[in-house]
């Protein structure tokens, strides 16, 4: 692949790493399968794009995008904890509603941002570094910052309470944790991250589109599961890093697939590739363990032979 494609994969990988971290919080920490993200990703894009085009400061617009995402996540959580709707269903309901809301926000299905001043505009003017390298570096640093923030939070008293809520809600309650509040908080944080990713993506992409959220949950899950299969998850930090890595890896594989000459693969084959990747990722740990066990048996028998 050429360097543009490589840095492009890094850039998209780092932006979607925020989605991977969000899915890490909802799916792994809170044990809450959350489809809201298919709606909160374009929500963040819609809010940011509409506000920027309306003349607001891009920084303010991006913050508002996060708040909108937080609101969406809270609604899903509220449907689940207060109205006792199954978490998956609750998230689907919010996702469906967000489609109409996004259309309203953008007053149409698409809001163009090309040529408009965004958060990324300063990066276009660095003489030493061309934009296609500056963007991934900037996003990489930003994602690292968010990662540190997430880890710091999960290690705080409230963060620990949230982890207990997902792992063992009954025990958490017996220890004074308001689990309903924790679920709402966790879902708010998760979807704020997704909306942030959407806002940043729209600003780098040049537009916000109402359909841009389709499949985001699959990308997030593929990133988390793929990263877990390849990297250690022993500590929280390592686990979150694995998710970020998974996101970048996913984009690298897509970039490879676009290099049609290499494998005869085309972008059209992407859904199939994603399915194969995720299946491999789920199966990999078992395969690895079996291979390790076989290796050990072989090594042990060889050692025994050497000793005799």
């Amino acid at each position, binding site marked *: 692949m050429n360097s543009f494609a490589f840095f492009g994969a890094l850039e998209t990988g780092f932006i979607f790493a925020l989605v991977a971290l969000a899915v890490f919080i909802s799916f792994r920490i809170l044990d809450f399968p959350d489809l809201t993200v298919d709606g909160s990703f374009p929500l963040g894009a819609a809010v940011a794009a509409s506000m920027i085009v309306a003349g607001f400061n891009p920084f303010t617009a991006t913050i508002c995008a996060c708040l909108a995402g937080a609101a969406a996540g809270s609604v899903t959580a509220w449907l689940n904890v207060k109205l006792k709707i199954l978490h998956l269903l609750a998230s689907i309901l919010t996702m469906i509603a967000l489609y109409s809301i996004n259309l309203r926000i953008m007053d149409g299905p698409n809001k163009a941002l090309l040529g408009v001043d965004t958060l990324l505009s300063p990066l276009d003017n660095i003489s030493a570094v061309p934009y296609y390298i500056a963007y991934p570096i900037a996003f990489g640093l930003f994602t690292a910052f968010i990662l540190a923030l997430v880890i710091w*939070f999960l*290690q*705080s*008293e*409230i*963060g*620990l*309470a949230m*982890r*207990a809520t997902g*792992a*063992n809600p*009954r*025990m*958490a*309650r*017996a*220890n*004074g*944790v*308001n*689990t309903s509040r924790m679920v709402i908080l966790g879902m708010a944080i998760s979807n704020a991250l997704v909306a942030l990713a959407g806002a940043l993506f729209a600003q780098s992409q040049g537009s916000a589109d109402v359909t841009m959220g389709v499949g985001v949950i699959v990308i997030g899950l593929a990133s988390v599961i793929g990263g877990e299969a390849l990297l250690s998850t022993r500590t929280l930090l390592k686990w979150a890093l694995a998710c970020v890595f998974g996101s970048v890896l996913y984009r690298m594989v897509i970039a490879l697939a676009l290099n049609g000459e290499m494998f005869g693969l085309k972008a059209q084959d992407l859904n199939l590739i994603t399915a194969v990747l995720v299946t491999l990722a789920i199966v990999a740990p078992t395969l690895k363990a079996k291979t390790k066990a076989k290796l050990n048996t072989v090594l042990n028998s060889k050692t025994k032979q050497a000793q005799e």
Partner: protein
Amino acid sequence: MIRVENLNVTFNEGTPLENPVLRGLSLAIPEGQFVTVIGSNGAGKSTLLNVVSGEVSVQKGQVYLGEQEITHWPVHQRASQVARVFQDPLTGTCESLSIEENLALAQARTKTRTLSRAAKKAFRSRFIAKLRTLQLGLENRLTDKIGLLSGGQRQAVSLLMASLQPMKLLLLDEHTAALDPKTAKFILELTDEIIRSEKLTALMVTHSMKQALSVGDRTIMLHQGKLAFDVEGEARSKMGTQDLIELFHKNHSELDDDALLLS
């Protein structure tokens, strides 16, 4: 100190599976008293505990902690004053969290949680000292995930967690039932010691009449959602298992729960 009045709890009300588990049960436990609760299956022992802890709501009746009525308080709100050790060691601890993190979680039971670091260095020395009292070597394994420990070890830690902060009431729900006899004995002795040294008010459900008499100040028996008998003090200290059975038969028909009779 702890008072329940006229508790009525029916599960699956209005369906063919309707089951009246507690039928007008009233009980008052003064401060510092250690009460053991026995009864056959379905007698309502665990339900009584769940009503006091807040996990089950009542159709009729009230629950008081001191002068405060807490009948409608949710579990987490009662948790600042009520500590609990579950029957299943897996329920009482968080498998994926470390020993230190589990303890930190319990440490914050009575406080408002903040964004400050949970597993504070300042707590470490206290945790290590407390773990040392268990004599299981756990004080050297603070950062190990608690899922690596055996059931007995986890139950010991659960007990420790319950006693990390002051409480008005300690609830023990057949907490030795899932353990082998040797570990069960160890945990029971530990329980007795903690309750005595901290002068706790405690309610312990047990399936064993023998165990019920070996610890505590007072023993009550539940049968079909009502109080079958209630003994304490001098009279109780002279009683053995057989005496309890006769006491039961005075007012009730055949008691046919083998496990209760033989353990």
